[in-house]
Structures are given as C-alpha cells and as structure tokens.
C-alpha cells in the first residue's frame, strides 16, 4: 500500500498470492500470523506456573548389602538409534591439528645441522620438542656458536648421528611456545621514511629472563659435551659450520 506522495515503490508481490489455480502461497493460518493479528489481540494467556519436578527419584532397593536406596532418573532421556547419533555432529568442526611426529633419529641430545635462517650451517644440540607447535627446542650452546635457546622446525634441520647425553640437563618448565612467541611492537611512523622495514621495527633486545635461562641450560649442556668421549673434537665441531664442499653430494653423505 502506497502513501500519498510516496516514491514509486519497486514492484513486489502481494503478501499472499496464487501459485496455481486455487492454491495460495500462504495458508490462512500462516497469514493469520503474518498479519500479526495474534499480537494485536487483547486476550493475554496467563503463564501457568510449572512446579519444578525433581530430576532424581529415590527408590528402595532390596538386598541387605545394597545400601537400601538408589537415586533413579525421574525420566530417562530418549534413546537414539545408532544411526541418529550422526546428528550429534557439531556445526563447527573442531580443528585439532596433530603436532608433527619427531623423526626417529632425532632424540634429546642429537646434534642437528640448521639448514636455513640466520644460523644456517651451524651445529646445535636438540633439547626437546615443544608441545603446542611441535617445533624443536635447540641451543648452540650459545658460547660455542652464538645460537641461543631457539625453536626450529624439523624440516629445516639435518639430524646427525652424533649425540650428546642431555639426560642431566634440566630444561626449565617456563620454556614453552608462549615463551618463544614473537611479540610485535607497533612503532609509530614518523614522517617520511626511506625504508619502512629498516626503521619501522624496534631492534630486538634480549631479555634478562632469556639470558638467565640460557646460562642455566648451557651450563649443563657444556658439561655433557665435556663428558663426551670425543669431547676434544666435539667442541671444534660445534664451533664450525657445515657446508657442502666440492665433489660432495648430500644424497651420498651419511650424517
């Protein structure tokens, strides 16, 4: 229905219209509700007070050693057919990605070669796999090759057969994924900057917490390296970097 002086409305169907001869789109009952007639009616139905029914009913049980009473559900829930349990599936599928399984040759104490990143080529000691992300926690030791307590993905690492005994190394419980997670500090851009990447970030500063944790872990790891039967070579091993030389092919190498 158009008001006088209203804009020409876009053409639309009447509220109820014929689909086919004698068949309306909405039934009389449906239209009753669509018109909002029920809402306009004055009669109000008083809400019946529902007495709260007890969920459990205590029933007497026979037998001298049975405690005499049992609490039984007043009304047992509906029993669904096995097939109908399909309807129990939640609308949103929960994502529980599995943490990547550790390669069999990577065990705590294995010496790994880092293949990419700032520390590529360096040999480090594997400490443990972190629970949440599955990344490997490694340490240089920092004194030997400047690699701190750090996370690495398994794919970016070659496991060597050299192993250091780190059973005596107690890794602090605080070293979790949250501890290593990067925190992005937003820096206000001031005026024209030649390279936003160069000056937009604040330089990373090592926290005191990291330094103390590093010292604690490295002390134990360095002690284990000293106890190793080949410790004389191992120290130099950690200090030097791995690289592919002439006529060396990794597919032929035993690491």
């Amino acid at each position, binding site marked *: 229905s158009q008001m006088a002086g209203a804009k020409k409305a876009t053409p639309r169907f009447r509220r109820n219209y014929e689909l086919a001869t004698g068949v309306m789109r909405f039934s009389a009952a449906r239209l009753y509700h669509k018109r909002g007639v029920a809402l306009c009616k004055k009669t109000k139905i008083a809400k019946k007070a529902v007495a709260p029914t007890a969920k459990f009913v205590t029933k007497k049980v026979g037998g001298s050693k049975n405690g005499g009473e049992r609490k039984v559900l007043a009304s047992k829930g509906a029993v669904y057919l096995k097939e109908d349990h399909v309807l129990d599936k939640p609308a949103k599928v929960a994502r529980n990605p599995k943490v990547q399984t550790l*390669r069999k*040759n990577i065990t705590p104490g294995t010496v790994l070669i880092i*293949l*990419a990143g700032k520390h*590529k*080529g360096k040999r480090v000691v594997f400490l443990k796999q972190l629970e949440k992300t599955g990344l490997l926690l490694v340490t240089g030791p920092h004194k*030997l*090759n*400047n690699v701190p307590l750090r996370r690495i993905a*398994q*794919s*970016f*690492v*070659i*496991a060597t057969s050299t192993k250091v005994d780190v059973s005596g190394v107690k890794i602090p419980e605080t070293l979790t994924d949250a501890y290593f997670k990067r925190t992005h500090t937003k820096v206000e851009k001031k005026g024209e900057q030649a*390279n936003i*990447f*160069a000056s937009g970030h604040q330089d990373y500063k090592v926290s005191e917490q990291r330094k103390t944790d590093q010292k604690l872990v490295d002390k134990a790891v360095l002690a284990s390296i000293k106890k190793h039967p080949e410790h004389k070579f191992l120290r130099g091993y950690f*200090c030097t*970097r*791995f*690289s*592919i*030389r002439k*006529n*060396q*092919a*990794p*597919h*032929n190498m035993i*690491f």
Partner: protein
Amino acid sequence: MAEAAPIVARKNDPALNGRLYVKAVFSGFTRGQRNQNETSSILKLDGVFNKNDAQWYVGKRVVYVYKAHNKKNVPGAAPSRVRCIWGRVTRSHGNTGSVRAKFHKNLPATALGQRIRVMLYPSNI
C-alpha cells in the same frame, strides 16, 4: 699507542658461511621435440647421475637467483639488485639423475644454462 682494532667474534662472521645448497643447471623446459612446456623445468644436478639418487632431491626447494638493474626492497635488509624465483623439485626426470622442478613463476628463457640452487630443505634425514 694506537688503539687496537675491535676484534669481531668470528663465530658470527657471515663470511664463514659455506654452501648449503646443491648446484644445478637449468637445462631446459620439459618438451617434446617441437613443443615445450614452460611450467615444468628440467634441472641437471651436480653429482647426481641416476634416478635413485635424484629421488632424494624430490620435494626440496629450489631457487633461481639473478640480478637486475633496479633495486628492490628486501624485508629486513637494504634494498638490493638480487632477485630470486623459488620453486620445488617435483620428480625425477629420465635415468641419468635429472630432475623436474616447478617454480612459482615460470623460469625466464634467459635462465637456460644458468645456475640454480637446490636447497637441502625440507629435510627428511
């Protein structure tokens, strides 16, 4: 007495970095005699001479590094003229150790006969 030059700890010297990739040459695109398919490149790897050995490299990431005239921004470093096209080794090719690779962008023809680096990651050993 003149001040001694500050001694930089050698353990962080980037110059000590060695090669962490296998050298390869871009020998051409996959092709029949008269037609070529630019989406798939054939790489000839250094020191790899049979199909078994070539299989080790399948899945490894591969990069074509080249220089251009104009400098481009590099995240976390000064703008540089060095550019690269990344890709992956997809499968072995033939019996004598060649390998096929697919790049994010097809390799340019100027790369024919040029050096391609086959990285050691994603590692499986």
